[in-house]
């Protein structure tokens, strides 16, 4: 039963052929069997999950109206607070911290009766593209345990691909939902900035961070999207508008007459041949479904990566100043003789990992007087140009598409000593965050040369997230009919312990 879609689990729960407690236990059994190898989870909340599942079962038994996803299990990225449950952000800094409040995402999940199984591994404070930067060890890609599951949300994507959960939550600052989805053959959506509340999402780069839904199918992702999205007065950047009909859009299976733009700049040199092969096949499927494909040029995208690696570290250097060892988190060296500043210095030395330190220092530099205009200021102007590129493109087409990543999953350790090479992996996903628009990655096949999943990225204009679900749902259906089964069902069997 763990291999089904969330939509099927939802139908079975409604029909009474399975209970929420049985579903939760089946997933805990799976986690016990495979997570020793995969390491998707940092913490399992068996007690909380079973209490929620029992409550949902009781409501259903009593004939109460419940949300369709009530009783369906979910894996939560460890960057979102859940009251009383450890939240580490993959950092030693927050080891043992149990937040005293729920993030709005968690409040919405609980309200819908979704069963939160536990917290998933991630690059420390969401900084990374491989989950190798976690202070608690790397997560492994279920398709090939010697490879990365993407990052920063590699725990969430691996949990989905390994059938440890049918639903997951990720957060996406520069691709941390979509790139992990791409390399694990799963679906991930970064909603329009402001569509999902950031309250209780531990901040990395506040103007870019966005939580979003992850699953194995487009429909499941749409169902979860509608649960977590919505206006929240606790987040001043939250969009005060009704949530669109994502589920209806995902079920539409009709894109006749839609104009789809292929981004010229997100292709060519540096892209793995098999990635482009599968991407082009998906374009043909879209044409067969009645869409018109046109090439679109976005010249400023060339500078997006550089702008991102100034803006995100700048905001991070400010956001991570809150980890000062005074109110929560670890404290090091407080022996009564040292000053607060000395204790702070020692705590941050021990609490932060290499990548986090690197970005704090880079951000501190980019924001310092004398360099501000040359670095942070220039990057913000490039951000304007990228936004304008998108506006010009969306004046001509309904959605834009590209590969989600230039390559399939790389080997663990392959890029960990070369930060610039690691950053290049995010080249296709980053422009979206800078412009605040919505974007989805869904699987479009296995690369012929290595048999690993390839991600297809759909970008839709701000506040029109329905469009990516409409195109994604149609593409998924077209590709699955040619494969005879969903891509996620082709993943190799994991050794069961």
């Amino acid at each position, binding site marked *: 039963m763990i291999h089904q879609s969330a939509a099927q689990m939802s139908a079975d729960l409604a029909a009474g052929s399975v209970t929420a407690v049985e579903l939760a236990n089946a997933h805990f059994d799976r986690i016990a069997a495979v997570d020793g190898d995969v390491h998707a989870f940092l913490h399992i909340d068996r007690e909380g999950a079973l209490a929620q599942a029992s409550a949902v079962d009781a409501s259903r038994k009593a004939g109460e109206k419940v949300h369709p996803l009530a009783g369906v299990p979910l894996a939560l990225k460890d960057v979102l607070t859940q009251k009383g449950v450890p939240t580490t952000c993959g950092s030693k800094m927050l080891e043992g911290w149990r937040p005293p409040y729920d993030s709005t995402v968690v409040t919405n999940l609980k309200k819908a009766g979704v069963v939160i199984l536990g917290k998933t591994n991630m690059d420390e404070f969401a900084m990374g593209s491989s989950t190798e930067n976690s202070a608690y060890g790397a997560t492994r890609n279920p398709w090939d345990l010697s490879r990365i599951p993407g990052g920063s949300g590699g725990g969430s994507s691996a949990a989905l691909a390994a059938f440890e959960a049918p639903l997951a939550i990720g957060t996406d600052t520069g691709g941390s939902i979509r790139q992990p989805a791409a390399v694990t053959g799963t679906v991930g959506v970064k909603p329009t*900035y402001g569509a999902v509340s950031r309250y209780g999402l531990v901040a990395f780069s506040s103007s870019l961070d966005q939580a979003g839904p992850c699953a194995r199918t487009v429909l499941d992702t749409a169902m979860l999207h509608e649960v977590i999205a919505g206006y929240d007065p606790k987040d001043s950047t939250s969009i005060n508008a009704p949530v669109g009909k994502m589920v209806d859009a995902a079920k539409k299976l009709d894109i006749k007459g839609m104009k789809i733009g292929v981004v010229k700049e997100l292709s060519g040199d540096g892209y793995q041949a098999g990635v482009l092969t599968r991407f082009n096949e998906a374009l043909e499927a879209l044409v067969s479904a009645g869409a018109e494909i046109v090439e679109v040029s976005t010249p400023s995208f060339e500078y997006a990566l550089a702008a991102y690696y100034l803006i995100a570290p700048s905001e991070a250097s400010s956001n991570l100043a809150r980890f000062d060892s005074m109110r929560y988190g670890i*404290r090091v060296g407080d022996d009564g003789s040292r000053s607060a500043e000395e204790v702070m210095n020692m705590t*941050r030395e021990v609490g932060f990992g290499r990548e986090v330190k690197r970005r704090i*220092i880079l951000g501190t530099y980019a924001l310092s007087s004398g360099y501000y205009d040359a*670095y942070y200021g220039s990057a913000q102007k490039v*951000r304007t*140009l990228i936004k304008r590129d998108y506006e010009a493109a969306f004046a001509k087409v309904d959605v834009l598409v590209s590969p989600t990543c230039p390559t399939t999953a790389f080997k663990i350790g392959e890029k960990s000593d070369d930060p610039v090479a690691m950053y290049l992996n995010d080249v296709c996903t980053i422009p979206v965050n800078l412009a605040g628009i919505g974007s989805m990655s869904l699987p479009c096949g296995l690369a012929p040369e290595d048999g690993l999943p390839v991600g297809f990225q759909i970008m839709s204009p701000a506040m029109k997230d329905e469009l990516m679900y409409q195109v994604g749902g149609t593409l998924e259906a077209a590709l699955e009919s040619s494969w005879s089964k969903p891509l996620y069902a082709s993943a190799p069997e994991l050794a069961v312990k």
Partner: protein
Amino acid sequence: MAAISRDEVAHLARLARIEMTDAELDHLASEMDLILESVSRVQGVAGADIPPTSHAIAMQNVMRPDAVVPSLTPEESLSGAPAREEDRFKVPQILGEE
């Protein structure tokens, strides 16, 4: 010429309140050099007439009603404190002895 010296990195680490060993400083200085070289591409791309963007979805003066709602209890607020004394966070000395 290096874009950033080891001394500059040491200064930034002090500003960021992160103690660093000599080995860490050496390593970071060379990495920072490579990173700065690659991100400096943003310079001169946009003309003087291009305004900066800080948030993609622009909003201004967002307010919420000034309504009284339940908040954390002192016990909850202090639940993660590394050290406490009564209902307060206990911190190392902030001012010098003199």
